[in-house]
């Protein structure tokens, strides 16, 4: 399947943290022809196994993790008049959701709008303040009576957004964080079909990353890999963001270094990138990262971990923007890295 087409499909699919069933189906359908086994664990992680070429009994086991959950909204109260109060699932800046169209997943899919009290009713000094979540409501333009029949507290809502093709290879959508990572896994699996790789590859679309990197921990526990690579997004350069805090778009994936990352893994990824002349950027992060890598590293007795990131602007808005080239370069780099991994390499990871 063409990667951009797949990215559009998964970004537009609903899958708020803890409620990933629908997007999981979309992922399964696209991945299944590239893998030998598929299973879904108790938490909802979808695990795809692509077996290595080695006939040896002991083959390296590589975990690839990209989270398929997305940030969203959850109804907390039905107000008089049928207006809905809500809270965020995951980190949402309330100032970026005012005036957005939403799809409310009640008893049926209901179109709505995120509204606020109009500006003419707000004292002038308040106009300089950003909206808080409690100032906002969802309006589904139904009478309170019908709202109470169709909606209940706990129902989810998502910003309505189709993927937008911008100039060149740039695209924007909701949920690029981290469906772009899931697309990298698919791209990697496609690349692997023409490469010889000794290792068994467990590509996992994880759940509940946005609410505390939960799914990856369970998936890693179940797979017991020799090493794990998380694929996520990272902040792209934009005005107001310091240069060292951000990666450039179109210049290849970020390779993270720091305490969350096993040095031999980052060094090997860099070596492979140089060997195949693939562009990359270094990202220094002085602590546990806010990605699945955070959970993978401390699972069971400790898992050597790496992190590959796609530069992305406007993270956690509905117009998360990235360059498709970065996504494809990430898939390729990951595949060449996997092809380079043998038993000797993974056994060397425990010796420091």
């Amino acid at each position, binding site marked *: 399947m063409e990667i951009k087409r797949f990215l559009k499909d998964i970004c537009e699919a609903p899958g708020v943290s803890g409620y990933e069933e629908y997007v999981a189906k979309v992922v399964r359908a696209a991945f299944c022809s590239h893998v030998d086994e598929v299973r879904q664990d108790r938490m909802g992680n979808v695990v795809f196994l692509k077996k290595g070429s080695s006939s040896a009994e002991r083959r390296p086991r590589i975990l690839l993790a990209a989270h398929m959950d997305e940030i969203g909204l959850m109804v907390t109260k039905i107000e*008089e008049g049928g207006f809905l109060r809500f809270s965020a699932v995951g980190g949402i800046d309330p100032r*970026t959701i005012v005036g957005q169209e939403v799809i409310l997943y009640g008893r049926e899919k209901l179109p709505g*709008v995120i*509204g606020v009290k109009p500006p003419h*009713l707000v004292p002038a000094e308040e106009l300089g303040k*950003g909206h808080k979540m409690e100032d906002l409501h969802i309006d589904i333009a*139904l009478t309170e009576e019908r709202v109470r029949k169709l909606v209940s507290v706990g129902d989810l809502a998502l910003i309505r957004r189709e993927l937008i093709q911008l100039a*060149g290879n740039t695209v924007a959508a909701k949920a690029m964080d981290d469906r772009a990572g899931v697309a990298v896994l698919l791209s990697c699996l496609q690349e692997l079909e023409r490469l010889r790789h000794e290792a068994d590859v467990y590509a996992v679309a994880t759940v509940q990353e946005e609410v505390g990197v939960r799914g990856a921990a369970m998936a890693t526990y179940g797979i017991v890999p020799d090493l794990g690579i998380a694929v996520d997004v990272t*902040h792209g350069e934009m005005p107001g963001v310091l240069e060292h805090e951000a990666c450039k778009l179109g210049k290849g994936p970020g390779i993270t270094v720091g305490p969350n990352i096993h040095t031999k893994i980052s060094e090997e990824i860099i070596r492979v990138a140089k060997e195949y002349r693939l562009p990359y950027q270094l990202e220094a992060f002085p602590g546990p990262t806010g990605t699945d890598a955070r959970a993978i590293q401390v699972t069971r007795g400790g898992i050597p971990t790496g992190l590959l990131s796609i530069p992305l602007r*406007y993270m956690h808005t509905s117009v998360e923007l990235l360059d498709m080239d970065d996504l494809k370069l990430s898939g390729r780099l990951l595949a060449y890295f996997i092809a380079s991994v043998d038993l000797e390499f993974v056994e060397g990871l425990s010796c420091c």
Partner: protein
Amino acid sequence: MLLKRLSEASGASGDEGEVRSLLKEELALHAEEVTTDALGNLYFKKGIGRKPRVMVVAHMDEVGLMVVGYEKSGLLRVAKVGSIDDRVLASKVVAIGKDRVPGVIGAKAVHLQKPDERTKAIKIDNLYIDLGVRSQEEAEKLVKIGDYGTFTVTAREAGDNCLIGKAFDNRAGCAVLAELLKEEFALELNAVFTVQEEVGLRGAGVAAYRLHPDLALVIETTAAADVVGSKESAYVTKLGDGPALTLMDSTYIAPQQIVDLVVETAEKLNIPYQFRRLTTAGTDAGIISQTHAGILSAVISIPCRYIHSPASIINLDDWQNTLRLARGILNAVAEGGLRLEGIA
């Protein structure tokens, strides 16, 4: 549905060409004469020479953005065209210029904001349109300084016979006027789609000067603030309660005989109506009523929640009832229901 097509068309103040073309194409066969003027107002005449001569007005323009500069990175600096609350701009999709080049208005990731940053409104000075290019040179190839931008939103049915979309102010009014033009009235009907209302009622004055009608009926869209958190006294209008009659705003006061005519017409025809309960803001009637030696003017409006934002809501019953009321007013006027000479 013409209303949906009108809502989706792009036409910030000064850039009404797309809406004008759409209306011309849709309505040319229904008029005896179609003209435009130097500002871009679009006129349809029907029943030429009949008395009284009535001008029915709806503005075509919408609030939007204008490209005013480039960053070296290729991001675009923008200014607002008309009154938009800066706080609705972040995280939206826009289309720019004649070719409708797509762009997004991003916002700094929540992870990178300092706590005090999060409490402040995101002002337009900190917002950019991102076309997906990597340099100013690439941006210059796609978009010119002065190009207009509007939100990209598909109009869509929602809730109890409602419509979600952009630019209902005042494409909803345009759609009412379009329907009126397809009907027959025993008067000279001048259907005028005006330009530049949102930047200061610029087009309507010119149109009124040229036509010098006996009466102007302005079809508008106005705020409905009937939402949670606002007091009933601040609702302005309520969605679903029918067309709103303006008594007074910042630009105009309704003459008593206009109020009587509209109220009597609504009651006679059993059309729900409400008064617009806000005395600020303005409509084309503000300038029309002060053209020549004064032109008798009336304003009726379709209530709209979240007006001037990318996703506003109107009720289609309100829209239908606005059409019925406008039709009723025209028929009443044709039957001599309005004293057109001076105040007695």
